[in-house]
């Protein structure tokens, strides 16, 4: 049958293709095609790390766009601080999920998040304010200030874990909960962090100087800032984050061009790290909304590695036992099933790599269950096949009939599972339950591929192999 040859060729092509994807061969070519390294992405529970779920204060409405902006600011800020491979994602209406793979020091994470800064440049006149001083300003211009204020009161009362920053995160890091003004004086805010166009660190002008933090202003703010600095030379301009003073530079000259620099001098000269921290504070300091930590999870790297190794071992043992059972009970079809399940595994893994699917422990469980589902599709066929053989059909008829009888139940049962996993996926992604989401995704992929292997691989291989067997052999090879 020409059709059959074609099917066999197609199977071989698919197998070669997925083997090329699965194993580390031709990595260069694959990198060009997918524009990234094609390796398995392990979830936090397998490689260790920290996950935090951030939440806007209760009762505070935010739109998706604002959340998205906040997530990308957090991600930039974390990456700028040198915390590697951090991902911040919006989940559902109200959450941002941050993942810090391989991170053991929680303080670093907290430093990044707690700086949910509302950044202001405040006119403090002749007062020199020490960094850390809490002040009040007249800036109430937008929703974001209002939200910072609510957050400050709410976090003190809320039962959510209030994670305190540590000194090394930056000198500006301030617990909102502690933001109680030390004096009643209300200062005037000249410009806010939203008026900054760009901020960068510039190298020392001479060996005695420190690094400087240069900034350019957006055009609307340039005039305001020019007027202010012209009139206030020699006075102090405090940089204030979340109502806490970060630094109080003195205005040395009028800044009319919208370009300025902040630098220390003498003992206070900035090192590169200090300047860079200030840059990050200025540039990424302003989140459009303030966020609190609703949930945090830390998995030690040893536990993760241990779980991965053990799960892989367990899967291998399980697979060997199943193979033995299939061979002994179903004989020739059992052998075909093992090949077909192996192909199933190869295709599924290739799809995990291509999408890419992040592998987590529940994800592995989902995969193993879909292996069960794929086996079920084979067993359903073989049971029907045996029934037809017992009724005296010849091999070819039995294979075809067994297939067509088993198909409706394979189709309907798998579709029902697919419906459930789609709903689970939705459930997982709307509120950041990456556990459930990972499980549902691997299960759904597995079910689809198992339909394909049942429909295509097992059936084709079986009808190709039976050509080599005589009907009189059926007791021996089919275990009737």
């Amino acid at each position: 049958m020409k059709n059959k040859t074609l099917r066999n060729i197609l199977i071989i092509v698919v197998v070669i293709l997925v083997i090329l994807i699965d194993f580390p061969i031709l990595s260069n070519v694959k990198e060009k095609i997918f524009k990234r390294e094609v390796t398995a992405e392990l979830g936090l529970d397998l490689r260790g790390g920290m996950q935090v779920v951030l939440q806007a204060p209760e009762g505070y409405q935010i739109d998706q766009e604002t959340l998205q902006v906040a997530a990308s600011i957090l991600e930039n800020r974390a990456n700028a601080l040198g915390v590697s491979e951090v991902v911040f994602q919006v989940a559902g209406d109200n959450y941002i999920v941050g993942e810090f793979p391989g991170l053991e020091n929680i303080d670093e994470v907290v430093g990044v998040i707690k700086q949910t800064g509302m950044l202001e440049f405040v006119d403090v006149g002749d007062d020199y304010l020490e960094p850390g001083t809490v002040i009040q300003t007249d800036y109430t211009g937008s929703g974001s200030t209002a939200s910072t204020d609510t957050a400050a009161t709410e976090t003190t009362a809320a039962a959510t874990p209030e994670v305190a920053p540590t000194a090394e995160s930056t000198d500006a890091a301030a617990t909102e909960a502690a933001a109680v003004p030390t004096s009643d004086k209300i200062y005037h805010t000249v410009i806010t962090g939203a008026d900054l166009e760009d901020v960068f660190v510039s190298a020392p002008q001479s060996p005695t100087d420190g690094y400087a933090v240069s900034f350019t202003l957006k055009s609307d703010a340039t005039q305001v800032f020019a007027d202010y600095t012209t009139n206030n030379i020699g006075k102090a301009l405090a940089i204030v984050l979340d109502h806490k003073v970060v630094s109080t530079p003195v205005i040395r000259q009028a800044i009319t061009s919208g370009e300025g620099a902040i630098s220390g001098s003498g003992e206070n000269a900035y090192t590169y790290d200090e300047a860079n921290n200030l840059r990050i504070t200025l540039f990424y300091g302003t989140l459009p909304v303030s966020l609190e930590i609703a949930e945090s999870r830390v998995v030690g790297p040893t536990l993760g590695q241990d779980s991965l190794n053990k799960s892989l071992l367990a899967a291998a043992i399980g697979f060997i036992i199943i193979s033995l059972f299939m061979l002994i009970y179903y004989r020739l079809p059992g052998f075909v099933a093992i090949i077909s399940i192996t192909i199933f595994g190869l295709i599924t893994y290739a799809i995990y790599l291509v999408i890419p699917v992040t592998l987590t422990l529940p994800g592995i469980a989902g995969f193993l269950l879909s292996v069960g589902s794929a086996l079920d599709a084979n067993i359903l066929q073989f049971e029907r096949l045996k029934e037809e053989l017992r009724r005296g059909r010849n091999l070819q008829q039995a294979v075809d009939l067994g297939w067509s009888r088993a198909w409706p139940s394979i189709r309907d049962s798998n579709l029902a599972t697919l419906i459930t996993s789609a709903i689970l996926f939705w459930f997982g992604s709307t509120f950041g339950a990456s556990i459930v989401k990972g499980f549902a995704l691997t299960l759904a992929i597995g079910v689809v591929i198992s339909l394909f292997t049942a429909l295509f691989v097992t059936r084709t291989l079986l009808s190709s192999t039976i050509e080599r067997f005589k009907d009189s052999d059926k007791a021996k090879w089919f275990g009737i």
Partner: protein
Amino acid sequence: MKLNILGKRYLFFFISLAMIIPGLVIIAIHGLPLSIDFTGGSMLEVQFATEKAPAMNDVLDLYASNGITDTQVQFSNSDEGVVAVIKSSSLTQEQHSAIISSLESDFDPNLVELKFDTVGPSISQSVTQRALLAIAISALAVIIYITFAFRGIQHAFRYGVCAIIAMVHDILIVISLGAIGSQLFGWQMDSLYLTALLTVIGFSTQDKIVVFDRIRENSPIMRRVPFEKIVNHSIVQSLQRSINTQLMTSEFLLLSLALFGGTTLREMCIILLVGLLSGTYSSIFIASPILVVWENKEWKTWFKKAKTTEA
């Protein structure tokens, strides 16, 4: 064909109830053994070298000195040492660091912090709500799908409803198991437990459909045969497949995961093991018999003992 499964249907209903009720009684007395994933709070998992592990009171005192009084501690032994699972209300970062450094200085300087989870109360509430919503929606979707897939035979709607009743049975079995496990082994219903439960739900319908498919196939052929006989015949026909798929494949995989997989997965695997078994059991002994009960309208002879089938 000689096997008369349906004849003993009330016996099977009774067996199921006997497995479900103890768990429900435990829940009625002690409440659901919810983990911090649903209640909010902190959970710290620390591994000590066997000879250096603190006693339970040491941990309680340490927490109390940090201002936390609702602490619960559980110890378990593993190859690498003693693992303490400490549950409490939410810890702040300072409290967490203080506790870890005290544990290091007082007991084992080389302790390994395996896990530290903190969940706020508002997020846990939304998890539970959405999980229930997800389950309800999938149940509805499954009923609609089955009704559609079985539209060729009489009372297609019943098949969907019976599949869902049997699914509720499986859920109850898993919840009952969780409750019993919480009393015997200190299990907690956490997000992995939820995942296991959702899986059981996903696969529950798969089994029912395989059996129902036989009924769907046999019904037009065996027109003159009473419905009860058709169903019994269909169950017996699909029995071999049910046993092979369940016992020989899925259960093997799960058993080997439970035995050789990491401790993280063990509880989940045991729940899946029992849950999937229950899924197969209920497709044969619950879903199909209820179809027959419905067809015969047997409740007319029950004299208000309507509770039995609800299981």
